């Protein structure tokens, strides 16, 4: 999945999309654009409801909708953007969508950009403004504003219903009147790394490698927009030892331990397993070689147990990890349960260490020890298609399956995983005979670079993915307890696969099933939740029908829980519930309901949507369906009736890292918080209004900040997540800022520096 940066998009007039040449001018030269034929973006007129129905009828897939109602529509086989033009245009005419655009892609099909309704024009000379005005009128453009960065550059909005932003840009450039004219694109930012084998690391960013399903990954690149890991967070790799001079690990390695009784400092002794696990968790990233670890700036504590994870070595290694302030321990092994290990697991937990272990590869419904221990996060493996790894999953490896069962907590990528290997001929690569059962029918050769292997497999590979996520979460907020980290990892899971996730006794962090636990771990959501400072729980909240029953329409069910695959006719009913909670900044709803999403019967099970969320209350929703056979026979409500709908969720206070408040006129009370900085620009606090800003590092008051007499303004410098208590700094109240220059409130400077009058 990729993150979209939406550049000031707003409701657009129709953007003609038909077979045509796509190009733009860069430096006066035509640059041709490749258009994706299987996907495009649309912007919803209202919400997801209508578009969901329409799209499900036409057998398409829609991606997660962003907060502004923009989403990617993917057409299934044999459909293309061009031959669906009439369909898309009909959505526009019906008022279902307000805007659509082709997606421009690179040579291998990665999303690069899409149009908005805006055009950027740079004048040749400041005196050409009148030319701009005339051209705007002639082309149904509205001059929106001047650029913040260049006085010759203007942003315009396209109101034409005949030409899209690209066509208008080309036409205007070809007049020769302007320095340049180009669409204001939506950019698809791909936060990949420059490491050699990163493109094969489907577990971090699944683009369909090995025939997998795009998006079935842990969302690592998205998480890296928030953190790539702190060197202060230490992941202990309790394993066969790690190659201490490996070029992709050496910069993250800390002094280690030999749990066999020797003194090798955590080095490997011929078995490549530990080196492989260490790489997945925290190989150095963006160093132009090898692979990228999940938490690629975190520290690694290598622990050597040799070729056998014997119980005494496990206990000894755990003890050393606890004594040496490990924040996370990754355990990709199973061993016999002993009192000594149980004691060390308890000690590590008491020391706030997050414990993670692999469930086993026997395709059994029982989970090995120590994964089965209550204090340990039990990690199973999934295939690149989002199934529990089994002998029949899509990866082609038929000899093993991930253990599952009542003790399973989460799943993570665990097959066809590229990672670090012992340098040279030792380890996995090039010992091809060891890989006889590896690679399935997807890979036949290992890397030419013997310091890496292309196909590390097993729940051993899944485990360090989760250890890395735990380290990322702690990198954002080191104040979290190990239980809070575990809650966050479990709450943030994606409900992948055709499994029936349900509310389960003893499973408080969302819906669960015994094949994939809480689901596929999601690093991006996890680090977002790590920002959370308060949590309010709501359990078994009932709801009420909202609005009217929809018209009847067709449903194609390919897999579900209780409803046989086939074609149906359905009417949809929305169920809503509203709750109140103590004052919460930037609330985020995390949880589930026993309904479905509005989009499709084949995904979105246990769907909960946020209709609105203020600082004191929220309204959530889900959908149920009145189902009929194609012949019209009434089959009942699915998945449940309105009176049986229940919402289980938490309200998190999820803070932004940097918050930019702009064009706001505050007349009552408002409060905002950000982990690092808050910038207030064109921000007016009216008399009687009360504004409180809390920022971890600084608050910047830019031009246009105005607090009139009689208003109250407080700026707290509140270092979040330092695990230390700093006194809050309070700015003087009732100050009157008249068009203040940029003014920075930094930690402890508020009291010492007079605010401008």
């Amino acid at each position: 999945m990729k993150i979209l940066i939406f550049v000031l998009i707003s409701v657009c007039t129709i953007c003609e999309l038909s077979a045509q040449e796509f190009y733009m001018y860069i430096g006066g030269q035509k640059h041709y654009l490749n258009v994706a034929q299987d996907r495009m973006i649309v912007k919803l007129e209202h919400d997801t409801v209508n578009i969901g129905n329409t799209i499900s009828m036409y057998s398409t897939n829609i991606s997660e909708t962003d907060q502004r109602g923009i989403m990617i529509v993917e057409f299934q086989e044999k459909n293309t953007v061009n031959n669906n033009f009439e369909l898309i245009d009909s959505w526009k005419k019906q008022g279902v969508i307000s805007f659509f655009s082709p997606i421009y892609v690179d040579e291998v099909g990665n999303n690069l950009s899409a149009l908005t309704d805006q055009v950027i024009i740079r004048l040749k000379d400041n005196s050409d403004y009148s030319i701009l005005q005339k051209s705007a009128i002639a082309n149904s453009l509205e001059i929106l504003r001047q650029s913040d960065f260049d006085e010759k550059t203007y942003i315009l909005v396209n109101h034409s219903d005949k030409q899209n932003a690209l066509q208008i840009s080309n036409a205007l450039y070809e007049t020769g009147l302007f320095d340049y004219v180009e669409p204001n694109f939506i950019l698809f930012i791909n936060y990949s790394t420059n490491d050699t084998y990163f493109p094969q690391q489907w577990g971090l960013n699944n683009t369909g490698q090995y025939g997998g399903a795009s998006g079935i990954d842990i969302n690592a690149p998205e998480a890296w927009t928030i953190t790539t890991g702190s060197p202060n967070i230490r992941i202990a790799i309790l394993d066969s030892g790690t190659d201490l001079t490996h070029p992709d690990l050496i910069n993250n390695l800390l002094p280690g331990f030999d749990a066999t009784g020797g003194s090798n400092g955590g080095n490997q002794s011929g078995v490549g397993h530990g080196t492989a696990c260490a790489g997945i968790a925290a190989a150095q990233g963006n160093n132009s070689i090898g692979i990228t670890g999940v938490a690629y700036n975190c520290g690694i504590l290598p622990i050597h147990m040799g070729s056998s994870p014997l119980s005494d070595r496990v206990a000894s290694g755990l003890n050393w990890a606890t004594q040496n302030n490990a924040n996370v321990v990754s355990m990709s092994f199973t061993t016999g349960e002993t009192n000594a290990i149980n004691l060390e697991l308890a000690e590590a937990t008491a020391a706030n260490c997050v414990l993670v272990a692999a469930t086993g590869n026997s395709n059994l419904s029982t989970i090995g020890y120590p994964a089965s221990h209550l204090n340990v996060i039990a990690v199973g493996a999934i295939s690149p298609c989002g199934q529990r790894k089994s002998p029949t999953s899509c990866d082609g490896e038929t000899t093993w399956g991930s253990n599952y069962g009542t003790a399973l907590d989460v799943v993570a990528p665990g097959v066809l995983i590229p990672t670090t290997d012992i340098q040279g001929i030792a380890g996995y690569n090039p010992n091809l005979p060891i890989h006889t059962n590896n690679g399935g029918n997807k890979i036949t050769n290992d890397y030419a670079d013997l310091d890496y292997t292309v196909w590390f497999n097993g729940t051993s590979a899944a485990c360090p993915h989760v250890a890395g996520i735990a380290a990322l979460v702690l990198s954002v907020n080191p104040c979290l307890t190990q239980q809070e980290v575990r809650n966050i990892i479990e709450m943030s899971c994606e409900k992948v696969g055709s499994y029936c996730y349900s509310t389960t006794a003893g499973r408080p962090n969302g819906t669960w099933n015994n094949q994939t636990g809480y689901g596929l771990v999601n690093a991006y959501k996890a680090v977002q939740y790590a920002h959370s400072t308060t949590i309010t729980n709501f359990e078994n909240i009932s709801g009420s029908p909202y609005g009217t029953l929809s018209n009847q329409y067709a449903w194609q069910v390919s897999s579900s829980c209780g409803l046989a695959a086939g074609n149906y006719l359905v009417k949809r009913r929305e169920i809503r519930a509203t709750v109140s909670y103590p004052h919460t900044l930037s609330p985020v709803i995390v949880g589930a309901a026993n309904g479905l999403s509005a989009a499709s019967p084949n995904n979105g099970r246990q769907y909960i949507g946020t209709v609105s969320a203020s600082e004191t209350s929220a309204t959530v929703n889900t959908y149920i369906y009145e189902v009929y056979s194609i012949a019209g026979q009434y089959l009942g409500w699915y998945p449940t009736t309105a009176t049986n709908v229940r919402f289980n969720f938490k309200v998190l206070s999820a803070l932004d890292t940097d918050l930019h408040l702009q064009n706001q006129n505050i007349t009552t009370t408002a409060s905002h918080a950000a982990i690092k900085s808050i910038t207030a620009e064109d921000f007016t606090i009216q008399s009687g209004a009360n504004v409180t800003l809390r920022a971890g590092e600084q608050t910047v008051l830019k031009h246009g900040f105005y607090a009139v007499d009689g208003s109250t303004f407080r700026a707290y410098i509140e270092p979040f997540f330092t695990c230390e208590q700093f006194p809050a700094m309070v700015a003087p109240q009732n100050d009157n800022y008249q068009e203040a220059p940029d003014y920075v409130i930094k930690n402890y400077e508020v009291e010492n520096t007079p605010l401008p009058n």
Partner: protein
Amino acid sequence: MKNNILKLTAFLLILTGSVSCENDIGTYKDRPIYTLCKKIEGSYLNILKLQGNGRLFLDSIPVKLVSQNNVTLIVYYPEQDSAIFKLSNPEAIYNAEICNFPDYAKHWEIPLQGKTFSFEGDFYEEGRYLSVPPYIGGKMVLTVFKSK
């Protein structure tokens, strides 16, 4: 002609084998193995029955065999009086300390390229790294150990 060559080869192999084969002292059937392997009791996950042929080395394994697949090795370390069992095949890589390496074998003359043996034994699994194939660690109890 071809048949004659095969018969001759088979005869020579049998002859060679009978010459180098030890007496029945190589079996453990009358020995109480747990008197030699007390540590095993209690903390193992599985017992795996293993048998086959392998090569015995003194002190170290030739580098070319370290990572080879489909190989069974025992390394005896006279100074520590300990022996390590290693079996690698496409399904798993086994590593174990042998808790009852026999006294008679300690006096065998072992060439650099190793001495061939046949064995049967119980592999007491104590832990495994959960890769595919797994690395399985534990203790090995030999029930038959003969030179070939």
